[in-house]
């Protein structure tokens, strides 16, 4: 009992590199149950519609993954999402809603996400503040900024081309699939790069990484900046879906993104896991509520059952990221 999760040297290293497997198995099971309850579950239209609903969380969870892989955590993602949403929608609205305004809005939104991530990274890695408290504090600031920019939800709408494009298809493939494809390609390329290896090294053992001369500070900042980028992408997806500005739109994403990451088998202690698991984890979270809904669960029991399933699944995710049996 004294060894605990600290001893990292294990023979089952291959398994630890594929921590998403449990999430994939669980997902297959859940898809089967969902199909049993909802006949048209596997029809393309329904699947795309489900995926569209899950896309914001998928993107945000990917961002959270990179921070957690570097053994940090970001409790400000929800606030960043809200902030990017109101910045984007406000700019589009005030510039008149033509193509240029839309581009400016998207550009400003992404820049906001990057800046917010950089602020987090500087506080945590450069000033050496404790990550949990710091990102809670910066999250409070971001949430305040969002409220300041747009005090009331629904007063500003995104121009029509935004949500039309978001729900459109190109060459027979929905826009959402294209976007996720581009993101997947980006993540794959990143996962084969030297900075990613450094990120994993820093998360795995920060002292050893520092001792090997790796740029620890820069790497941790990069983790937060990437997270900010993905939060802005998630916020843009959310904007495409809801077509409105809402200063509180992102609140729930903070905790659900962490749940998705852990469900996907990524260890909170850093250095073990990957974005594939988090994507599966995000889809899992969405499907769990789907299944509970289609199973005809009485309304008041839905949250409790969801809570219990998520807790059990979280425990399973942790179990896997630790490399199976004790």
């Amino acid at each position, binding site marked *: 009992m004294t060894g605990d999760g600290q001893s990292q040297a294990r023979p089952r290293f291959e398994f630890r590199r594929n921590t998403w497997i449990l999430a994939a198995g669980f997902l297959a099971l859940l898809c089967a149950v969902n199909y049993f309850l909802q006949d048209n579950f596997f029809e393309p239209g329904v699947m795309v519609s489900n995926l569209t609903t899950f896309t914001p969380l998928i993107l945000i969870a990917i961002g959270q993954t990179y921070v957690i892989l570097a053994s940090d955590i970001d409790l400000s993602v929800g606030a960043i999402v809200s902030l990017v949403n109101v910045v984007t929608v406000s700019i589009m609205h005030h510039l008149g809603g033509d193509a240029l305004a839309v581009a400016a809005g998207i550009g400003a939104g992404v820049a906001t996400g990057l800046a917010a991530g950089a602020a987090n990274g500087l506080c945590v890695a450069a000033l050496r503040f*404790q990550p949990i408290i710091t990102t809670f504090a910066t999250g409070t600031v971001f949430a*305040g900024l969002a409220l300041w920019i747009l005090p009331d939800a629904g007063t500003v709408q995104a121009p029509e081309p935004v949500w039309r494009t978001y729900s459109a298809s190109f060459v027979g493939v929905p826009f959402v699939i294209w976007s996720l494809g581009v993101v997947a390609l980006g993540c794959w390329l990143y996962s084969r790069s030297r900075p990613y290896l450094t990120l994993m090294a820093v998360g795995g053992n920060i002292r050893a990484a520092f001792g090997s001369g790796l740029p620890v500070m820069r790497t941790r900042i990069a983790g937060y900046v990437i997270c900010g980028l993905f939060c802005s992408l998630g916020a843009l997806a959310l904007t495409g879906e809801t077509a409105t500005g809402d200063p509180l739109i992102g609140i729930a994403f903070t905790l659900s993104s*962490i749940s998705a990451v852990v469900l996907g088998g990524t260890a909170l202690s850093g250095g073990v896991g990957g974005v594939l698991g988090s994507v599966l984890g995000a889809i899992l979270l969405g499907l769990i509520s789907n299944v509970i809904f289609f199973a005809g669960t009485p309304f008041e029991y839905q949250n409790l059952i969801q*809570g219990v399933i998520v*807790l059990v699944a*979280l*425990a399973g995710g*942790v179990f896997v990221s630790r490399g199976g049996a004790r």
Partner: protein
Amino acid sequence: MSAARERTRSGPRWYRHSLVLTLAIIVVLFAAGETLSPGFAAPGQVIYLLVTASLLGFVAAGQNLVILGGREGIDLSVGGMISLGALIAGNVMDASNAAILPALLATLAGTFALGAVNGLGVTFLRIPPLVMTLGMYGVIQGLLIVITRGVPSGRAAPMLSAFVNEPLVLGIPGILFAWAAFAAFVIWMLRSTAFGLRIYAIGANENAAALSGVAIRRTRVLLFALSGMCAGLTGFLVLGFSGNVFIGVGDQYMLPSIIAVVIGGTSLAGGIGGHHGTVAGAIVLVLLQSILTTLNIDPSGRAMIFGGTLLLLMFFYGRQQRLRV
């Protein structure tokens, strides 16, 4: 063990230093409040502030224990526990003075048990506390809806409301005496009892503690159970404070309870710190929020200033060690 005793008795220098700093900040905040809005530091207002701080203080005490116990100890389920505690208490007493004691016992037992589940998950299934308590928070949220069916229920007994809100002796409400006694008890327990020393021992170095014969699992399960119980007690008092219950009543206490512990000088790494700092931390947080409310700043500005001030406080206390080869 003697190292832990040493640490709790005198504390490392930076820790004593930060307690002084916290006290100085309290005085400065009161002075600033009085300057900005005359009457801020009037006796009645100070007592009201302290009552608000006491609610945070009770839940922060449990959080304090869990964090001191180390191994990334943290309890994110306290928000749900407070709501649940308030709900149990409100329904058992249902505005009847005679039912206050049963209500208190039911609240404490229920939240102690749920907290113990947190502890069992953390120690036996080895789930990180952040994840376990976050999951538990989700479960409790669901439980609250099942119990209430979405409709708030339960009312505070008049005696409980009076205990929290009305002067008992010298214009001071009973809850403040209770808080003082409770805080003194926790400080004494941490410094002078075997259980308190065990908490520091497992927080500072779990392996060494286990080799020295400390039952680390039992101790840690107990810490989480006590944290749940402290949150339940807070819920009981929050019921008295506000008179009725709504489902999310406890959520606002979750992160402040952690922040109060941290700005009170307890290290999130575990094993270092104490409870007197947490008491001061709770007062600082409530003061800060109150000043921002008094200044009539709109909610967005209040959030920005609150977050900014936290960052500033982090600059003084929350800095982690520089990496060295």
